[in-house]
């Protein structure tokens, strides 16, 4: 049965590594639903958050193949109930939106969003949440004429308490090096 899986891939910061990671999915004709990559709290160690929809079995195989890539420290595979995650959305509306009857401030408040910036010609709204929520705001704002909309991939945190350093040390100790 296909389900959503969130993969946290802990990597070095190397040119081409992202390509190497995505190639593993491409080869299996797997679509990446979203991807986010950024530096972790440890300097020069990055985390990619990749969301795919597939079976547990195939996802585990792919995770093991990802872990083989030189430059990848560890891959964590999570199902939806094992993580807390967020996405970020930005909405650009014409400045006229402020003057229309329905108070834009009210909508922003109701959706737990915020006004990021008010410029001469437009306003920018920021909303953090799951896709369903950012989508709902998108639809609500539609009548004002959305000039631009962008949504990030997911960033996720695992519910278990074990810190990354401990995971990495454990892996390090599970192997010999000549």
């Amino acid at each position, binding site marked *: 049965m296909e389900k959503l899986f969130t993969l946290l891939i802990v*990597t*070095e910061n190397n*040119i*081409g590594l992202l*390509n*190497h990671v995505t*190639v593993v999915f491409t*080869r299996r004709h797997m679509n990446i639903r979203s991807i986010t990559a950024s530096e972790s709290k440890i300097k020069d160690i990055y985390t990619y958050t990749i969301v795919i929809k597939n079976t547990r079995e195939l996802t*585990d*195989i792919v995770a*093991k*193949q990802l*872990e*083989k*890539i*030189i*430059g*990848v*420290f560890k891959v964590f595979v999570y199902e939806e109930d094992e993580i807390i995650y967020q996405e970020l959305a930005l909405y650009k509306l014409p400045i006229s939106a402020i003057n229309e009857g329905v108070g834009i401030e009210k909508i922003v408040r109701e959706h737990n969003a915020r006004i990021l910036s008010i410029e001469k010609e437009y306003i920018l709204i920021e909303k953090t949440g799951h896709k369903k929520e950012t989508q709902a705001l998108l639809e609500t704002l539609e009548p004002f004429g959305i000039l631009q909309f962008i949504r990030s991939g997911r960033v996720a945190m695992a519910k278990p308490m074990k810190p990354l350093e401990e995971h990495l040390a454990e*892996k390090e*100790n*599970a*192997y*010999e*090096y*000549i």
Partner: protein
Amino acid sequence: MTTTVKEKKAVKLDNITGSEAVIRSLINENVETIFGYPGGAIMPIYDALYDFDKELKHILTRHEQGAIHAAEAYAKVSGKPGIVFATSGPGATNLITGLANAMVDSTPVICITGQVHSHLLGFDAFQETDVVGISMPVTKWNFQVTKASEIPEVLAKAFYLAKNGRPGPVLIDITKDAQLENFDFLYQKVNKVPTFYPYPKINNDALLKAAELINSAKKPMVLAGQGIKISGAEEELKTFINKTGIPVASTLLGLTSFSSDHPLYFGMLGMHGSYAPNIKSNEADLIIAVGMRFDDRVTGDTSRYIKNAKVIHIDIDASEIDKNIKTDAAVIGDAKKVLEKLIPEVNQKKHEQWVNEFNELKKEEYDKVIKIDILPNTEKFRPAEIIHTISGKCKENAVVVTDVGQHQMMAARYYSLNTKNIFITSGGLGTMGFGLPASFGASMAAPDKQVVLFVGDGGLQMTIQELDTIRRNNSNIKIVLLNNSYLGMVRQWQELFNEKRYSFTDMDNPDFIKIAEAYSIKSSRVTKREELDSAIEQMFADNNPFFLEVVVEREDNVFPMVPGGAAVSDIILAKNDLKK
């Protein structure tokens, strides 16, 4: 080939070029031989090489693909990574087939490619190609060097990564400006690379579970793969088998991991493997897979494969576990280390009844297939009898090289291999054209050994230009061309599954003897049985290369055969069985 590190003093040299640094790094890694082909973007490295002809032997092949296949075989024979030089663009792309071959067959190869100046990267410069991007899926690691100062560390990593853990190919792309730049060189060998986890510590619980399964099994069977050879576990496997009394079969790349004359050895697995192990796989109650990856050519239809058996999978590569076949006990680790620990935990046993059943099937295969193949009553030669005859006349430590196709399966079946032989073939990728350059690489690694190449008329012509590399080096290679003027394996499938619609498999060949003559290689064409012995005698008479063309039956088939998509136990012994 478990690696031991000799602590070497760091080598330091001030103000040398990146190119000289490449050469000195190779020397520091005890490289003796390089296979390569020069071109614009790698000229500085070749210029530096010019001064090191005493330390390094460079072999100019006639094509970069020839260089990398030679390097692959060199690695398999020497146990050291094979080294390849090639230029940018087409030079680099000509390596891709070899890289893919080395990747799937776990061969340590290090390719050094020249690249355009770093300021031209991405500008479609002359002979620029994104070789790092192209080679990414077919290398264990690759890296683009744009500064000379990166060279020593990157090359040290390349050597460590290529040969440790599950071996594989590495490609290092060096821009021309990095080759020309001067810097202060300091070379230190690497014995650890962050994010690379080569040797898993063996999990004792898994090991004990495996031992328990082995001790309670009634119908166990061992599948021996190349991992045994890579880890040097041949002796441990023999001890394990002698103690447990378990029948063994080998994968194509696992051949020579166990002696073919051992009473518990029952031949090769898979599509053109032996009858007994294919049938018995599906009756076994325990499969012990050592250093192999359950390739589809071994398993046939996985939904009907070893369904009665518990599975123990011993492999160094965790990603192979549960990939194709679900395991009951996975012991992740180096085959030699795992077997060493497993041997004291298993009981001395004999499985007489079970082994007898193997022997009965072995006899049936001998009567219905082997006897007829090696002692045919046909007028024309059959490939099996040639291989069988030559096998009987070769030295016991001969290096046996094949190309890909029917003759390859025949060589795997009818050459009597022991653990002193080295068998070199293209396994996972099935690369036609591999054989000829590979035989050359093997000969470079072991000039004193007898190297015999079995090759078909199709594959020979894919890399035939390397005859000239053999000529120039006067390599002691006995080239045995089994010429049926067909792409035999494809033709066999067309005969069996496409109603003999021989679509583009008829070869309409040139005169191979004239070609051999043009390359000044002594040759002989044999068409009649009474000529064979004297031709073979002539072939082995001296240490020069020899080209023996044997004109064989055009429409011979390799049996037994597991038809594509069938269960291994549906293996057939003859064409007539297909209809059942």
